């Protein structure tokens, strides 16, 4: 790789909001967090430049775009056939030696850094249009968890590349009149957090829209249980200014997702009765998360929706990781209305206030 050419791979630490075109929204956002001082699981991106090198080097470029010409967004049968054909092509194609070397080297370095031989990683697509405010494509690209060993990492990187050509993604581009050849995809390869507990955090009270509050939902194991709604998570409401824990609801958490070391995937397990009603993270972790939430919000300048996890293997103090952060959308879209309307002076406010009083419902 020479200095003027964009890199095929890029450590998260070198990604930032200006590199969305190169590493996609997800990886750029992780880089942003690292640069803001937020702990995220380490990893690297295979860049869109790497993607172009792949399709170009494998000589499948023309064949792909040939398949896509004259497709109608409504003809689902044809769309599906084209998608299948393209995805098979991509998954059967070979990396260039240079690209394969670079991905392999990054993976080796990552394993050393994590002190885990052939460290299990998440391989996920990081699209260049995803995660941007107002255009949420979440779920349209693929994520592969607990991938271990360079062969599997390479295979799943190709699978992520091919997700750019899922039936839905193709149909969407046709509907929006986007050029197929202009879109590219990056792939993030990131250490899997072996989470003891995980969940989501909003740096706003999602119920009232109060920006001075932080809400944390937490349950044992991986965050899937919380995100999918399979458990009712513990709820912690924290005052953003004082970091006081103002509300604590400990729920009964019957199931959790944990790693299955045989299949390198997560599996659903029933939690033993004696663990079900225990608070899933301790108060110090709640406070640490809230502190991170404040930094993340300050960094982005808007209330955020954050996925996080507490690592099972690492020492306390360095074991809380932020997995994803995106702007909260529900309240952000409601244009904030001033509560003090039409009043000019303090006396006007005082008059309105005594006229209104306090409602007793």
């Amino acid at each position, binding site marked *: 790789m020479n200095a003027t050419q964009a890199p095929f791979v890029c450590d998260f630490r070198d990604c930032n909001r200006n590199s969305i075109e190169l590493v996609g929204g997800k990886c750029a956002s992780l880089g942003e967090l690292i640069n803001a001082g937020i702990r995220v699981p380490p990893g690297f991106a295979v860049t869109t430049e790497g993607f172009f090198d792949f399709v170009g080097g494998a000589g499948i470029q023309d064949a792909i775009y040939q398949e896509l010409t004259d497709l109608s967004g409504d003809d689902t049968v044809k769309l599906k056939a084209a998608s299948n054909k393209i995805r098979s092509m991509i998954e059967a194609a070979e990396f260039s030696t240079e690209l394969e070397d670079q991905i392999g080297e990054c993976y080796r370095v990552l394993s050393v850094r994590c002190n885990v031989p052939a460290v299990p990683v998440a391989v996920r697509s990081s699209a260049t249009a995803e995660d941007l405010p107002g255009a949420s494509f979440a779920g349209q690209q693929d994520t592969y968890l607990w991938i271990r060993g360079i062969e599997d990492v390479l295979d799943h990187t190709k699978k992520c590349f091919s997700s750019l050509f899922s039936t839905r993604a193709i149909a969407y581009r046709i509907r929006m009149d986007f050029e197929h050849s202009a879109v590219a995809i990056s792939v993030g390869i990131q250490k899997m957090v072996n989470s003891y507990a995980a969940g989501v955090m909003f740096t706003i*009270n999602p119920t*009232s*829209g*109060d*920006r*001075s*509050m932080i809400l944390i939902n937490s349950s044992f194991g991986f965050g899937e249980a919380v995100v999918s709604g399979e458990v009712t998570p513990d709820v912690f*409401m924290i*005052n*953003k*200014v*004082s970091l*006081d*824990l*103002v*509300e604590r609801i400990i729920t009964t958490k019957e199931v959790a997702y944990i790693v299955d070391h045989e299949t390198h995937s997560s599996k659903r397990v029933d939690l033993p009765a004696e663990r079900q009603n225990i608070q899933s993270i301790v108060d110090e972790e709640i406070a640490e998360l809230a502190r991170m939430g404040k930094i993340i919000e300050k960094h982005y300048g808007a209330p955020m929706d954050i996925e996080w996890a507490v690592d099972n293997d690492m020492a306390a103090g360095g074991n809380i990781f932020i997995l994803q952060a995106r702007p909260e959308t529900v309240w952000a879209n409601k244009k*904030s*209305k*001033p*509560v*003090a*309307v039409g*009043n000019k*002076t*303090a*006396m006007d*406010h*005082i*008059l*309105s*206030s*005594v*006229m*209104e*009083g*306090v*409602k*007793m*419902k």
Partner: protein
Amino acid sequence: MGKSKFPDPHEVETIPGTEGWERMYPYQYQFVTDDPEREQYEKESFWFYDGLHYPEPLYPFDTIWDEAWYLSLSQFSHRIFSIPPVKGVDHRMKNGYVYISPVAITDPKEIEGRVAHFMERAGYYYENWNELEAKWEEKMKKTIAELEAVEIAPLPDLEDISIVTEGIGESSGYQLLKNYDTVIDLGIRCWQYHFEFLNLGYAAYVTFMGHCQKIWPDIPLQRITQMISGIEVIMYRPDEELRNLARKAVELEIVDSLKSSTSFSEVKATLEHMDAGKQWLEALEKVRYPWFHVSTGTGWFHHDRSWNDDLDVPLGSICTYAEKLLAGKSIDRPIEAVRAERDRITSEYRGLIDNDEDLAAFDQLLATAKTVFPYVENHLFYVEHWFHSIFWNKIREVGAIMKEHGFIDDVEDIWLLKRSEIKDALWDLVTAWATGVKPRGPKVWPPEIEWRKGVMEKFKQWTPPPALGPPPEVIQEPFTIVLWGVTNESLANWAELSEADGDVRIIKGFAASPGTVEGKARVCRTVKEIGELEEGEILVAPTTSPSWAPAFVKIKACVTDVGGVMSHAAIVCREYGVPAIVGTGSATKIIKSGQMIRVNGSTGEVELL
């Protein structure tokens, strides 16, 4: 309309054996059934027990301050500042306990008609706040000086010759009647001033709090009050003088002598034999007037004695501070830290406001709240502490004369009489003295006082219902909102607590200072008991006042029966960064010394472990 239901005031029964108790209080304080119109009004109104000011039933004489504020608060809201939707706050009594009811104006036309007056009048006060407040201080100082000058002199057998030679033409008997009236009048006048700024002060708080709560629906009240903390007020000066005296004692190396006895007179005798001791006593004398005119309670009751009445109290506090100093610890109030935290919190909240209109309103209203803050604190020193401390003793002087003439058996019996009854008795006393005959009073008052003492005992055993009648849909009266904290939630808590007797595990109050701690409770019913506090215990008290300040350097949390988020305990605990829960209503009755409790100053819950 709330779910909370409270009894009809007319159905609350008189305690057996106290029949006729109504004569101990002004007649207009009764709930009546012989006037259908008034009865209907009382039935439809919402009355809540003013436990904030009256944790115990009122002695007949002490009712003077209730009447004084009944008049003063109401007149300023209704007749002077014309607060548009609000009249005054009505008062009643049941079994010795005071119930109050904010009176609203419901006719929209009438409300509208009051707006212009309110804007002009309240606007004038807010605009000229500092000048008017300076004028207020002068009026108060003058009133206090007048009170100090009133002489309550015993009646001589033969009048002094000067009455003749100076052609005075008035007797000591007339003087006694007149001077008693003067003392009472000055008391009422001083309470006129008490509310001159207070209604507007609270209205400014309500407005600032309301604005913050609209922007941040989940903001705790204590965070709002923190934004107006760290302002220097003279209410803290007495305590500061104690710290200075402790510093001086350490400097003069006389701490051991101070600690040689808990009795000030004994310590004084020791100190008078030492040069350093004399120096220290001089320093003490210098600050006693006015700074030791501080009540050991709220100042509302005759039994709240001042530091000047009982120098053992400040002595104990000075020793506590001196010991801290000798142990190498600081006794400085953490005022700089309080201000830094105030500024941090204010700027963080401010930073969360995302439109210019709300930001401008926030800045304006915060500034107004900060302007009114010193008055809201300082009036307490002038009225409840300084004036009252002198006032109670003047009335004791009247009591001494009544005792001398056989009207009462003990000076302290005077509190069982209404102030109008005292005036009647003084007429009896003075005319009999003038005429040289036996007064009727000595046969009338002692048995009546005996009976009233029994009634007071029965009143104390009774638990007043927290409220009576139907809760209103909206409350606009500023005091009801800020001071008594009447909300749906507090009503529900009251209803719950009045139903649950027996095994209480959780006591709820106002979350006044954040944080959670577990520890050993120490119940101190009076400030004299704070000497028993050990380092790291949790103080459980009826209420606290500046006299209690030394306790706060020792404790790790505080729980009170009475008070809101702007009460003394709340403010001081936030300063020292220890959790506090105030206004629990009953903590001192339920919690025992030595019991382990958990105090969550963020949620307002005390858990008995």
